[in-house]
């Protein structure tokens, strides 16, 4: 499947992937509204780790046998058999955070949106088609590509 791969050699620590992620997952899909009206600051589904000069955007690897899906108590977290995308059906999530404990990359963070729990994890922008973090990365430190067959 096509996944987002980070190329830390070119990550320049601007964190714009986080900004683009937040906007892509906002109701309005508008930068200003996402931050100023929907109050989504801090809800990025990608984690930019910093260990300067190194930095890297860490996000869900969409595992073949996802531990978060296995651990999900409500059945909210699923892996789409057609696309391979692991995502959370947000209306089913109860915020137990088993997924947070399960993820072998620490790529799921507990979050909240409109008073409801929301696991902050990459869904490869399944609703819009192209991952916003990749499209908006100014230095091509993130790429969206097929690297191995199957999966």
């Amino acid at each position, binding site marked *: 499947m096509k996944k987002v791969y980070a190329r830390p050699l070119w990550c320049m620590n601007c*964190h714009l992937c986080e900004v683009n992620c937040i906007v892509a997952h906002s109701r309005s899909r508008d930068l200003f509204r996402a931050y100023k009206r929907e109050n989504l600051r801090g809800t990025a589904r990608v984690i930019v780790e910093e260990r300067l000069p190194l930095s890297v955007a860490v996000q869900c690897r969409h595992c073949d046998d996802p531990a978060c899906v296995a651990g999900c108590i409500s059945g909210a977290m699923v892996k789409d058999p057609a696309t391979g995308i692991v995502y959370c059906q947000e209306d089913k999530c109860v915020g137990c955070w088993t997924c947070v404990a399960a993820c072998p990359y620490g790529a799921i963070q507990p979050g909240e949106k409109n008073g409801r729990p929301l696991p902050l994890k990459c869904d490869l922008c399944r609703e819009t088609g192209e991952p916003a973090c990749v499209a908006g990365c100014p230095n091509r430190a993130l790429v969206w590509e097929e690297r191995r067959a199957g999966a």
Partner: protein
Amino acid sequence: MPALSLMPPEFSIVRDENKCVKCLACVRQCGFGAQQYDAADDRLYTIDANCVNCQRCVSICPTGALTIYKNPPPLRPHAYWTENHLRNIAKQAETGGVLLTGMGNDQPFPAYFDRLLLNASQVTNPSIDPLREPMELRTYLGRRPEAGGMMEGREERQAKTRTPLVPIETPIMFSAMSYGSISHEAFTSLARAAKEFGTMFNTGEGGLPGDLYDYADHAVVQVASGRFGVHADYLNAGRIVEIKIGQGAKPGIGGHLPGEKITAAVAATRMIPEGTDALSPAPHHDIYSIEDLKQLIFTLKEATRYQKPVSVKISAVHNVAAIASGIARAGADIIAIDGFRGGTGAAPTMIRDHVGIPIELAIAAVDQRLRDEGIRNQISLVAAGGFRSSADVVKAIALGADAVYIATAALIALGCHLCQKCYTGKCSWGIATQDPYRSRRLNPEIGAERLYNLLRGWSHEIKEMLGGMGINSIESLRGNRLHLRGVGLNEVELKLLGVKHAGEAM
């Protein structure tokens, strides 16, 4: 910093709080500590005194919330005591040092390119549409065989010592910028773009990094007074060998790359100890005459078995024509002349701004002198120093150049905003820095694409201009000063440039 700074900050950074979403990209990207964040108060603020107006924050800001303004002059406007003078004096009163700067001469000297206009065909001769008809931009660099009247046996001897011509697909090459003065990423971008477009990049005086030898067939490898990174494999890997005598931004003086920029990789490439200052002497200590230069030229030709044309690069100075003649007679295959607008990673401000002459006049003078002496056709003339557009390139070729070197324009394509702080090593754009946190901002994949695009765009434009003049080959434009007219130039200038004034007929 002194307790009392005599000068207010040069720039003000203004943040539109209505737009700012506090993503902090500006803080993370500012190379000079002008953008700050106070986590305790969740507050962004600026230290304007640190701002160099490199525009990195403005460019990276996803909401367009930032604008940098030039502050009004610290005194009432004064045509003689300009702001630059005041700031420089205040700085020197604090430091007692030589003023340093980067990039090229920014003073309002005349730009002759802007006083020259090109011709076009109308009715009596047809113009050519480059989209429909072939248009040749390929240029060959190097020494041509001498015209007849040769002595017995000389032709044979000459054939043995004649270096091959080097074709370039567009008359634009990347000028010398050493690894060390620019980042590995910037250097790689230039090398890749040159190879992909079929032109040359120039290593500058810092050698060629080991991982870039794949690009060496598109490299002009420089030999400068410090002889950094010069060895037999280096010379033989390159396509052209260039002896650097001078540089347009700082004629007559040497170079100084501070030890902080001599990282392990730079040190290995330059073959000097890590962390030591790399000092290039002002002269080559083995060159005190044209005869000495000839020795070095042939030493290099011998070392490369006459397979590499040798170029000699000099600054455009007052006596440039006579020097160029000497260089041609000393056996050089290419003369590169760097005008006073040429850039640099670091130069004393006074030198940069007050030494040397405009490249337009130098081209005309050298071309004319070599023609007068009947040797113009033997040698290629490459002009450098401040080419801002394809029109400048076309005008330079019409004045007599074979090709041009661009560097400042290339850096601008890579993101440079001419803040002139190259010498600090803090370049926010990842160009003039060896700090990996900064240099990684310049992904050479993107850099090479941008440079390629620039070459492509300029080359298209050159074809358009040639076609308009009814010329289908760049070679036919060379030295064709009838295609140029001056505007607003006095008689001396017109005479030196060898052009008629606009309005004068053929």
